[in-house]
């Protein structure tokens, strides 16, 4: 049985269709569900093995990216989400989905006193940008990145700079392998770990430690700013007319990994 994928849609979500398509190509069975249905019946999530929060501008990114939907999850869906995680299921947040995961506390736990562990803030450039980036996998923690050393994917965001509460928190996440995906110089070799800050625009938003994607302590909840669903076809690659890229896009592996996780 292919795993069932819940594509969570809210006002302003706009990458839901191509993300569902990527899961379908990878062998998943997707269903797009409006957040209002989940708020009415949080147990709806029980029927699925994978929860995906796709990109977009949930509630317009008004106030801050992902904040409003993140708060709705905190206030109304926390129990359902905790039991989803506890059941060994997978959660993926892409771009706005990553922002929502971070702001909902689903990805990194809050500290009762100091509050959230991290956030995603405005790009150092101060503007929304669509550009392609080189990404290297920095740890084997994330289920989604199994067997992925490097990917070439587009980013398209304004608020993607990952900022931890303090240096100690960031260091602990790093040590725990949770800063799983990093921006790398465009000519970096696969798997090479850039410890120094990668300069703009290879690091498109100025994230410290070049953080592009973060997973939780189990590796089963993962959020990333780049868009893997925008690189599943040969002709997605910006230089496919130059013969670059493979027969399928780099991003497909991430969806295949999540589907394969339930195949055994």
């Amino acid at each position, binding site marked *: 049985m292919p795993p069932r994928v819940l594509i969570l849609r809210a*006002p302003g979500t706009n990458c839901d269709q191509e993300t569902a398509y990527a899961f379908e190509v990878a062998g998943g069975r997707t269903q797009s569900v*409006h957040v209002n249905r989940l708020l009415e019946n949080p147990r709806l999530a029980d029927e699925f093995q994978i929860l995906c929060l796709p990109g977009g*501008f949930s*509630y317009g990114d008004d106030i801050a990216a992902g904040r409003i939907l993140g708060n709705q999850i905190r206030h109304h869906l926390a129990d359902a989400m905790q039991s989803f995680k506890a059941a060994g299921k997978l959660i993926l947040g892409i771009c706005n989905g990553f922002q929502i995961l971070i702001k909902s506390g689903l990805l990194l736990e809050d500290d009762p006193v100091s509050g959230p562990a991290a956030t995603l803030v405005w790009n150092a450039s101060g503007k929304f940008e669509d550009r392609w980036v080189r990404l290297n996998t920095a740890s084997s923690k994330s289920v989604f990145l199994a067997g992925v050393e490097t990917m070439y994917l587009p980013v398209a965001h304004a608020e993607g700079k990952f900022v931890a509460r303090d240096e100690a928190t960031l260091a602990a996440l790093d040590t725990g392998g949770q800063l799983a995906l990093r921006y790398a110089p465009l000519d970096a070799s696969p798997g090479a770990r850039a410890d120094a800050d990668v300069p703009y625009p290879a690091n498109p938003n100025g994230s410290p430690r070049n953080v592009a994607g973060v997973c939780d302590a189990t590796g089963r909840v993962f959020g990333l700013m780049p868009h893997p669903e*925008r690189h599943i076809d040969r002709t997605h690659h910006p230089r496919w007319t130059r013969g670059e890229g493979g027969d399928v896009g780099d991003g497909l592996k991430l969806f295949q990994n999540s589907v394969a996780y339930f195949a055994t």
Partner: protein
Amino acid sequence: MLWEVDIYAAEGQADLAAGRIRGDAADLGLAANLAVRAASGFLVEGPLDETAARMIADELLADRVVERAVVAPVGDERLTMPPGGEKRLVHVLMKPGVMDPVAQSALGAIADFGLRPDAVRTLRKYWLGELPDDKLKLLCQKVLANDAIEQVIVGPLRLERLEFGSPYKFALVTTPIRDLDDDGLMRLSREGQLYLKITEMRTIAAHFRELSREPTDVELETIAQTWSEHCSHKTLAGRIAYRDERGERRFDNMLKETIFAATQEIRRRLGDDDWCVSVFKDNAGVVRFDEQHNIAFKVETHNHPSAIEPYGGANTGIGGVIRDTLGTGMGAKPICNTDVFCFAPPDTPADAIPPGTLHPRRVVKGVVAGVRDYGNRMGIPTVNGAIYFDPRYVGNPLVYCGNVGLIPRDKSFKKTIPGDLIVALGGRTGRDGIHGATFSSAELTSESETVSGGAVQIGNAITEKMVLDVLLAARDRELFTAVTDCGAGGFSSAVGEMGAEIGAEVWLDRVPLKYDGLSYTEMWISEAQERMVLSVSEDTWPQLEALCASEGVEATILGRFVPTGRLVLKYGEHQVADLSMEFLHDGRPPTVRDAVYTPPPVVPLNVVPRADYTDALVKILSSLNVASKEWVIRQYDHEVQGGSVVKPLVGVVNDGPSDAAVLRPALSSRRGVVVSCGMNPRYGEFDTYHMAASAIDEAVRNCVAVGADPSRIAILDNFCWGDCDRSETLGSLVRAAIACQDIALAFGTPFISGKDSLNNEFSYLDDRGAKQTIAIPPSLLISAMGQVDDVGRCVTMDLKRPGSVLYQIGETRDELGGSHFALVEGLSGGQVPTVDAEKARATFAALYEAIHAGLVLACHDLSEGGLAAAVAEMAFAGGIGVHVNLDNVPRVANVDAVAALLFSESNSRFVVEVASDNAARFEAALAGNPLARIGETTSEQRLTVAASGKNAIKSELPHLKEAWQQPLRW
């Protein structure tokens, strides 16, 4: 209780807004290194105690990791303590009634905490260093706020409450018209902002004399809106007597007899192979795409609002054209946006800007941000565009917004059924945009901002996205019978059009309002954004209502389409309008105009020959029209929806200028849509016929350059012109329309939709009190939508590898008139580029076959800057060197001047890179067309162009690329 929450960057975090303001203040010469601290703020009104207010601040409004919040009741001194000892405090608030999407969302999000505030407003707060009053005032005007939509409060905020609006007390207003003389009629037209002509006012007066009564205010408004230039295109669809050097031509309906006639003839010739589906009829033109789908395309302009409030104008411009495709047939799914802008040069000195205008730099930034924020939020990739700079756009910038939609073939038509309910979907109605339709028929003046401020709006993209989601779901479930968008003219236009053949009764007291106090007339003509009108049968209404409720979209029954042939408006018990649909739609007296065109004599353009033209090439690459637009393009999401194939930026480091964009709208299919454009306002000074012909050629060849099938390209026209009451101005437009007819027919390329915007002029009083008027140059945008059956066959313009053969396809003529060479060299005169349509058509067809057969590595069209600029762009985009020999360039007889061979902008030409192995096959494919090997690609990072054995151009690629990228790298 009225709480204020001010949010500052926390210690050690960047204050990005402050940095921008400091930079702008320095640019304007107001202060060298101004101390700035910026905060975003929220005003929250309602029964909240301090604990609740603090909780909202910490958990919703501020990000505790990187921000700190100051929370206090308005007026409290905690809010007026400068964070760093700054001297001046400025608050900027939206004017009451202006759309404030963040405040709306915050209100909803606070409800998630179980709290129920009454109202929320946002504000911006700036702490500034020492600054004298006059400079502070300038900073507020030029940087901090736009007083078309915002108010500035210097010093502490004193505010008691947020709510505004007061209950409306009904009073029927009638406007005496029957006894007015011509002066009185024109005064009424002007002061009532009807902007109708005297013949039209006389017709209205006569109509009501016949009815033996005076019109109500809303009846007059409805007529003015329906008869407005914006809604009826009365000038171009009117009677025109046109004269030029070839004689006289009389039109009963100019557009119908030129552009539309060409399309009809093309369709007739195609017979059973006709692939046009719905042209010049619906909100967008529709053509066949594949077995399941058609595609729709529409381009609109939003010029006057963008002049006054660039962000909001562009924002609602893109929002409006998206609703056009969404309101086509039974609703098309928007799949990409295009945007073309015309601005004054951004380096125009501040003191050269006429009174009442915004500095072009500010207009550029505002317009780009407006398109970015709306398009990105809608999740529609913005894939194609262009920007043209000319000083004459200073008071009247042009903002063209386009949208392509994908629609199932069986959903491409609609039909309102008598008895259907009139249902409004989406945003609520406020005073926004009152008189937008009639305002766009007026000339802009330095007073426009005060007179017409109500016509300027901000959009709320998420409301429109929610409407899009439910509308397409409702379409697939067949829950309505017809749909149209609420654009200019609001409900008046939408209901008037849908019910034109039937009749309608509207119950205005049911209109959902943003705030109290709107009169019945304001409700009827408001152009509030993000609204659609549907006709819905009684049977399906409950399902539609439930669907909308399930996604939080407001749907309201406003009336019924009744088979009376009349438009009846009611407010409660009161009837406020009763007009015959016939008078409304067919009663307007025909507009009769004289149009005259005298082509200026061709005067020679004198180029002093010289040995080296490298400098001219560098100047062309650095000219604003040619220079890289990467700063703009990267701010648009051009890949959302996952179908991107050829991006706007291509090449070895993804930064070369693509000729056209290609995308796959259906992800499981290999079939692609190609989008491109053509425009050259500089040619209009020579001959608008050739300008229009060149624009069509450019749009089509851009499409062909990436691999589109030239027999499946559809085009759109958008005329932006000056005041067409002047017969010379109208003459230059008619001449362009005749060219559109001729070239479309010769190419077999149908126009499927179009739009015009006349009166693009700006008037002001100069220092001596004399009226000065700046008219824009004739500005015809041609947008092209092509198709490819397999996107894997597409090519891009970047050179691919050393050792390939370079060809020029098409003949070079001595056509430097209006060229960019003439621009950067300060030369005048010359022959403007013309189009040899028969040759062009054959070339396009042969090139398509060669690309389709896989014989082409790279292809780029020749446009601004001619051969030299095209080859330079191909080289630095690909990071591949080039050597060209001009001696071989295909040309008409007697063209041997090096400058012409390098920089002439003759149409229908391409440079193509072909692998040497394929050269023979490629030459065979192009047999019979003007073609010659002009050079080869090399492994050096250098461009050389030789003429008669000597280098006329020699430059390193990084130098050329920097010249091209530097000017607009903001």
